[in-house]
């Protein structure tokens, strides 16, 4: 438990210790705010959906910023900064090391997403259905956790790949296209929509949109369950890869070789 909480907390603080609070606000709050504004106004110009479609989609998606970039760095930076060998030399439980890193990023992603909804309420006159906030909160928690699981997978690949941040950036931007964030899945070509359905975020956004327009939590239980299962599958794959790359790195003495 100590490795899980303290290890995860230290890893998170290490990621942000170089950045000043003002920079953190600019990156984690400013950028998501302008992303929401940009796509909502672009949506108004295109005229295909109402504001709520873009607000909910983007306010959910911005959680992926912490989930994917943060989690990728949380794991892959160990290799980049030369701390991977000492970390893996410890007898600490690998599952605790690995999953403990996820918790702060889930909290961070939730905070960013809540901020996105709050500024949309303030600046874009977004009004979710009355009494929908608790259910919306559940959707945010599940979807953010799924995004973090995807970030874990990319981070694990970073234990072997040379330029994992290219992959993290690419995935983040592709999610804007294929996960129903700004384009309804029905308007995408079938193969793109199929990719989107295999990724975290897609079902969570769909659930959040239904909740925001008045659906009860029970009505979207299937969507949220699917989102959680997808997240679990990615987290499992990430952990398996982490262990495989650890074993391979030890066997070939290539833990920190690029």
């Amino acid at each position, binding site marked *: 438990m100590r490795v899980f909480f303290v290890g995860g907390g230290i890893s998170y603080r290490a990621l942000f210790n170089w950045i000043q609070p003002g920079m953190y606000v600019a*990156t984690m709050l400013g*950028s998501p705010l302008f992303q929401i504004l*940009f796509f909502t106004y672009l949506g*108004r110009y295109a*005229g295909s959906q109402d504001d709520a479609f873009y607000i909910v989609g983007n306010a959910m998606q911005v959680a992926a910023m912490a989930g994917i970039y943060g989690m990728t760095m949380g794991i892959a930076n160990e290799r980049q900064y030369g701390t991977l060998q000492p970390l893996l030399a410890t007898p600490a439980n690998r599952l605790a090391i690995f999953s403990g890193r996820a918790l702060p990023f889930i909290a961070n992603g939730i905070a960013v997403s809540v901020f996105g909804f709050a500024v949309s309420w303030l600046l874009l006159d977004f009004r979710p259905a009355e009494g929908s906030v608790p259910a919306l909160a559940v959707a945010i928690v599940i979807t953010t956790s799924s995004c973090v699981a995807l970030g874990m997978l990319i981070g694990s690949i970073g234990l072997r790949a040379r330029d994992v941040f290219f992959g993290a950036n690419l995935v983040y*931007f592709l999610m*804007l296209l294929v996960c129903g964030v700004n384009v309804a899945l029905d308007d995408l070509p079938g193969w793109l929509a199929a990719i989107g359905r295999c990724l975290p975020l897609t079902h969570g956004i769909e659930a959040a949109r239904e909740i925001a327009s008045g659906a009860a939590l029970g009505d979207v239980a299937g969507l949220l369950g699917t989102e959680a299962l997808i997240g679990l599958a990615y987290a499992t794959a990430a952990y398996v890869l982490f262990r495989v790359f650890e074993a391979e790195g030890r066997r070939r003495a290539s833990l920190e070789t690029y």
Partner: protein
Amino acid sequence: MTARLFWMGWLFHVKTLTNSLFFVLVSVLQPIIFASIAFFMVESGNQAGTLLYVALGAGLMGIWSATLFGSGGAIQWQRWQGTLELLVGAPPPFVAVLLPLTVATSTIGIYSVVATLAWGRLFFGMPLDFAHPLQLAVALPTTVLSLGMLGLLLASTFVLYRNANAFSNLLEYPVWLATGLLVPLTLLPGWVAPIGWVLSPTWGMRAIRQAAFGGNAWPEIALCVGLGIAYVALGALALRNFERLARSRATLSLT
């Protein structure tokens, strides 16, 4: 001497940036993804027939991103590589060393325009009919050059701040909005438009659209040139001051 310095510096940095996976992402893949999102949005909405408008806008978004991250990050990368002191200490004025770099970052943004036009043509059947090809042939390089000069101004303000590249993340979307690259300014609150007037992408975008859809692009091209000259003057002034401060505070190489 100065022309040779500019040419060699520009060529070197264009090659370096072209070899960077990050800049391939920013100047090719990201604009294609954003163009695709916008294509699908306008196709399913009530703006059908505006694909070329969207493709050009997404292309210019890519030029801005490349300039922003390239110019903002360039100083930081030189710091990390330990070459910033050498560049500042070299005999030519620092502005003459830095300008080719910032223009190179906007130049690779041309990949964005080519990529979004080709993408739109191949996958969305977008017609490539330009009303005034000659004006377009002047408007595009002028826009790129003026953005490179804007990059110089950005770089001159980033030089003293160790984490200034974090600001780059913040500045991407607001400038896309304020310069009307994809979203017409008439949809935004009235106070946004004056911000765009001092940013060359606004006039560059208008010039390119005038050239593509019919109209007179020359006044906008002239505005781009004028703003570019102003950016260089301001950038040179700021750079001299920042350089002096960095030397006196010994903060130039701090990472």
